[in-house]
């Protein structure tokens, strides 16, 4: 999933303080699981802002709505359809992709991010998330015991731990597990330690962000409606 974190409420207030009709758009997928930008959190931000405006005697009001996914035009269009009047400003609580989709659908309405998009990770327990993938476009997990060094080694090393690995922890911060210690341990339990001897060659980063902006088309799902 995409792990997100809500921006400080003061920063959100800065985005909307000169508007009259504010829409807070929650996202029911990743942001909701993160307890940062789902339906409840959208209502929470709405409540906080409205209390603030009331306290300041300002005639501004915030509404909230949410979609199953803000990264999908069908769901965002539903939000737009439900608007009696177009809002002056929208705070999107979806990841960066969601913010942009909301922008696309609402066209002239300014859309601001209410959350910071952080990483692709797992939900390890309620409220606890950790980075697991960097979307490099060419998965090498087959070579590394199912543990990703690209995202989980602080230096993205592909051929074993640097000299800073100590007691299973990374030199950068002792709250970070050394990915290569994890890989070593996993390969050992799988009786595949010989994999550690292989030199993983220089990576082709073109499949990652370094090859330019990426797009993906699943051919069989796409119908050309103009084709005779």
């Amino acid at each position, binding site marked *: 999933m995409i792990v997100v974190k809500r921006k400080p409420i003061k920063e959100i207030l800065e985005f909307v303080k000169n508007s009259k009709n504010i829409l807070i758009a929650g996202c029911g997928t990743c942001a909701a699981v993160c307890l940062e930008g789902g339906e409840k959190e959208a209502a929470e931000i709405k409540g906080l802002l409205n209390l603030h405006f009331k306290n300041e005697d300002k005639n501004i009001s915030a509404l909230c709505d949410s979609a199953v996914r803000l990264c999908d035009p069908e769901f965002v269009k539903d939000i737009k359809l439900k608007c009696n009047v177009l809002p002056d400003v929208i705070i999107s609580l979806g990841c960066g992709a969601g913010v942009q989709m909301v922008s696309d659908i609402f066209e002239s309405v300014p859309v601001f991010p209410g959350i910071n998009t952080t990483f692709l990770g797992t939900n390890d327990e309620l409220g606890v998330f950790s980075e697991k993938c960097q979307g490099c476009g060419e998965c090498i997990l087959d070579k590394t015991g199912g543990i990703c060094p690209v995202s989980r080694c602080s*230096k993205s090393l592909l051929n074993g731990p*640097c000299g800073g690995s100590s007691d299973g922890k990374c030199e950068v911060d002792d709250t970070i597990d050394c990915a290569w210690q994890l890989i070593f341990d996993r390969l050992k339990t799988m009786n595949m330690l010989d994999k*550690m001897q292989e030199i993983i060659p*220089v990576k082709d980063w073109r499949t990652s962000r370094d090859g330019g902006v990426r797009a993906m088309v699943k051919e069989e799902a796409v119908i050309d409606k103009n084709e005779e």
Partner: protein
Amino acid sequence: MHQESNLKKVLDSGKFAVTCELGPPKGTDLDVVKEKASLIKGYVDAVNVTDNQTAIVRLSSIATSHILHDLGIDPIMQMVCRDRNRIAMQSDLFGAYSLGIKNLLCLSGDHQTFGNHPESKNVFDIDSIQQLSMINKMKNEKKAYCGEEIEGDFDMFLGGASNPFGDPYEFRVIRLAKKINAGAKFIQTQCIYDMDKFEDFMKMVRDMGLHKKTYILAGVLPLKSFGMAKYMKNNVAGVQIPDELLNRMKTAKAAGKGMSAKEGIKICVEQIKRLRNIEGVHGVHVMAIEWEKKVPQIVEEAGLLPRPEL
């Protein structure tokens, strides 16, 4: 036109090599480089020039190495993977070679969060093992990594680092083997204090025959004070200092001013003497960081003078 690396000549001749380290200034003050160089010239076979060590911005390792070369010292240019992608690395290597630099130490590099620009983005396009294999290919095939011909000559005496005390311990010798397979002709180790553990490591090295495939230079770092010893033990990842050494430094501290440094040097000299007797150790790398002036004394007391002139 290009003379061979002095370090390579010493090692090839079978003599016990001595290298030390020189940290470039945090700016353009070349007098710092020249002064440090004058302290160590003639006492070592080659000098490592750090590449923005601990991610602190300093005069470039290429420029500093070039100055040393001009002063008649054989530089070992260090190059980290943190700050350069494969394009910049190859370009800088052509530059380094053109300036007469003949030794290269390939390193991952300390993470930038340790340095004075912790907010910066890192590169890590390739890792230190891939770096070794890329440059090895460049020198063997005279082709850039992409396969295009290199215009002109290119060569480097290639080295890598090894931390025998990093975790997982079992993997350390495998990692060393990977570096050798990737093209490391010499290896400089992290500073060694736990001699028994290093002996154990060297036994694994010999069992795999690695000491016959590369030259191993054991790293030593003279302790200046008890405080420094404690700090290194507790804060530097991958450095292990036995209690016995800590106690010696503690006793020296109690003995009065100047005694700690004296004891630190004494320990260092003892370590070098012991390292010399370990089969498969081909030299010693003295990391007297910001203490370059002690290098001559250490080398002399360790019985490593005069240095061979080849």
